[in-house]
């Protein structure tokens, strides 16, 4: 099918956060300790389900970096239904499966055609309850992870975020590289994977969030998708990661990239905080201000998508954070960044006059526009169900933004957008850029 594709490199912008959306028809319940969320959408052609388990990075010990990813990848590599792997079996039935390893959770996303979706969920249920951690499967899983790790190293934003997260989460493994490192992955054996799986693939705290054209058979299966996992919940092991002996808030890395990138990270209010709406407005404002001061005439998505400029509010993790990034395609990225920060500081301290309605309209529009795929919708409903016990992320977000006042904006800007940690990712062989 199709129109000529124009190859934008937007994948890196989607690396961390996301947002989602449509006026959903939400329904949620707790079944056998699992929060089940359904968004019915008869206009959709597909169904997507996100499975969120408390088996993310913070469940690892420092010497286990990469084990959470290896277990998740092994599940996708598990032979099922006569196919060599779960992934192959799902693809042959008209679907796909992916996963992300987050600081506090692992998230699987399964999408497919309505007529075969019940069969696809059945395969997922089987593989997730009886994963294969044989040496052969672990070898395939390591190879797949090594490839993803190498790809991530080509994305400056991912490299910078890995560095920043290392200092953002000092009390657990939550800030270590999500997929591990090839050298650590090579050390894990069958028993390591089995033990991690047995300890953390539990029903307690799990969320299954589905969206789309959900038929009755698949709807029933969604409710019982994790029934074969043991009950109970887990806690993250307490660890004390040694911090770098420096007072500098700037981290530097060099990679084979064409232009330098500046990535900054701030602590931010959690989703259930009264400051959530104000931070959404501020993040949208930062995004727009950065694009303006980067000096790019960005009439359209075509031109803006080709520039790495943005602000992401990661409210799906705890503690939440805001990440701001600028690439150096238009010159020194620290200048654009410093100018944007100055604007925010002025906003935080000046006497604001007039209405902030335009800022709120812009923030709502951004949120809705960035939350349209089934994957985003399933993800957001799951996040809101987990944090607020209400999966209706659209109404809650719009309400939070609408009730934001100018005073709220100033208070939140002053409280959170102070001095960030900064990562500079530089092309190999160029002099260091000064920090802003």
């Amino acid at each position, binding site marked *: 099918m199709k129109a000529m594709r124009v190859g934008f490199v937007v994948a890196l912008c989607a690396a961390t956060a996301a947002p989602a959306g449509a*006026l959903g028809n939400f329904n949620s319940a707790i079944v056998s300790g699992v929060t089940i969320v359904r968004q019915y959408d008869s206009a959709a052609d597909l169904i997507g389900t996100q499975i969120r388990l408390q088996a993310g990075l913070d469940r690892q010990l420092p010497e286990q970096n990469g084990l959470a990813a290896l277990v998740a990848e092994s599940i996708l590599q598990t032979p099922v239904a006569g196919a060599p792997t779960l992934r192959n079996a799902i693809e042959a039935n008209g679907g796909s499966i992916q996963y992300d390893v987050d600081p506090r959770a692992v998230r699987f996303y399964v999408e497919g055609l309505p007529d075969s979706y019940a069969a696809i969920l059945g395969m997922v249920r089987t593989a997730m309850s009886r994963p294969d951690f044989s040496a052969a499967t672990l070898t395939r899983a390591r190879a797949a992870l090594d490839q993803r790790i190498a790809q991530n190293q080509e994305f400056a934003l991912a490299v910078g975020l890995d560095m920043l997260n290392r200092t953002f989460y000092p009390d657990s493994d939550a800030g270590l590289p999500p997929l591990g490192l090839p050298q650590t992955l090579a050390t894990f054996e069958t028993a390591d994977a089995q033990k991690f799986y047995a300890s953390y693939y539990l029903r307690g705290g799990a969320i299954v969030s589905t969206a789309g054209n959900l038929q009755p058979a698949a709807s029933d299966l969604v409710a019982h998708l994790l029934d074969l996992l043991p009950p109970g919940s887990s806690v993250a092991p307490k660890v004390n990661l040694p911090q770098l002996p420096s007072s500098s808030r700037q981290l530097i890395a060099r990679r084979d990239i064409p232009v330098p990138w500046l990535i900054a990270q701030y602590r931010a209010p959690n989703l259930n905080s009264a400051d959530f709406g104000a931070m959404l407005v501020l993040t949208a404002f930062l995004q727009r201000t950065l694009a303006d001061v980067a000096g790019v005439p960005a009439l359209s998505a075509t031109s803006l998508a080709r520039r790495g400029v943005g602000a992401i509010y990661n409210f799906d993790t705890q503690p939440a954070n805001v990440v701001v990034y600028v690439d150096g395609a238009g010159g020194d990225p620290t200048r654009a960044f410093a100018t944007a920060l100055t604007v925010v500081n002025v906003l935080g301290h000046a006497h604001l006059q007039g209405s902030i309605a335009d800022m709120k309209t812009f923030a709502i529009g951004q949120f809705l526009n960035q939350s349209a795929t089934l994957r985003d919708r399933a993800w957001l409903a799951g996040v809101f169900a987990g944090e607020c016990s209400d999966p209706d992320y659209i109404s809650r977000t719009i309400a939070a933004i609408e009730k934001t006042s100018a005073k709220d904006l100033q208070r939140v800007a002053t409280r959170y957008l102070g001095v960030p940690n900064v990562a500079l990712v530089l092309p190999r062989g160029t002099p260091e850029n000064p920090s802003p």
Partner: protein
Amino acid sequence: MIARAVLRAATVFAIVLAVRAPARAEAVTVHADPTAATTAIELWYRAPAAGYDFRTPGIARLALASVAASKVAGGASVSEIVNQVGGVLSLAVYPDIVMVGASVPSSQAQQVFRAMTNAYFGATITSSGLKLGAEDSALVAAQLPYDSERTLQDALFAQLFAEGPAHYAPIPDATAFAKFTQSDVQNFAARAFRRDNAIVSLAGNVTGLAAPLHSEAATTAPLDSTPASQATQTTVTSHEAGVGVAWAGPPISDTRAATALDFVADYLFDADHGTVAKSSNVQRDVLLSGQFITLHDPGALIVTISGDTANSILPNVLDAVDKMQQPLDPATFAAARKAFFYHILSQIQTPIERADNNGWYAAEGNAQYAPGDPSGIYLAAANSLDPKFVAETVRRYLRNPVVVHLVRASGESTAT
């Protein structure tokens, strides 16, 4: 709550829309989803990107951008209005068709739709709009040489088509845009963007949008290009190494054959799951992608390979196409077709993807063939495929490709 209010209004409009759903002779395509929080609004035009005499490459991109940047009657420009509401503005230029589109919150859709139709149907271009449009177009053009997939597409089309809009790259080098006068751009916009040449594509929550209906017969006829009489091999210099191959394919009216080549492109050449992309000798630095581009007449199947070792992958591509001249075994075919269904539908999930998809097929002359159209023509064609027909279609169309090599070197391109 805004969301609840929009939902109620959307439900009401769904009924209205059902009553006055446009007949297919009208140049409007609508995919209504009353549960959507956003609306996609697109205006498509059959207009040659290189100008009506093909001597002004870039004029269509410049005209699209200049109208978007021009303030209408002292108010805000389309670009400003879309940005103010947190929307996304898209400008797309292909050899034979162009599009301006916006994805906005549904509550803002009427305002944005009105602004877009006023600006484009009136072909409003101010001097400051022209300046901004030229800057924006130059920025996009300056980045294209680093997009080897796009560079290969343009070079392949230039070889595949001897005459017509597809022979010319839709976006030229970055210096081209400053050479046009306001009068040049205004004249092009007035001819291309006129009301009765517009094909309106709406998707998502279309509450309250009254599309300016007119007969499709009033629009410019689809702009076809003439295939070259013989296959060529060409070398083009670029910032990245690569190689591409292309074949002329069936017209959009031959829905079964066109769908068969969609299937072949998906099965063999999809960047993520195609059998060739997954070949063991494809290095990590290589990006392989293939697609059948559905055009009015003829279509084109193109495969692009970027990266330093791209040439070593070319035999994989040609061997894979040769093997497809023989029918796949039934089990492999059944699994591949099921996966193909999913891939097609996964590309039209959001309102903006729907509007893009529907608008493209309408502009190329067969709106009902768009995947996801309620007529079900596309899925029926996909369902009708069998291994024998696919092999026959490959034998019929995929012989003697044109080949373009991208090399990192200075100098002129040379045709052999």
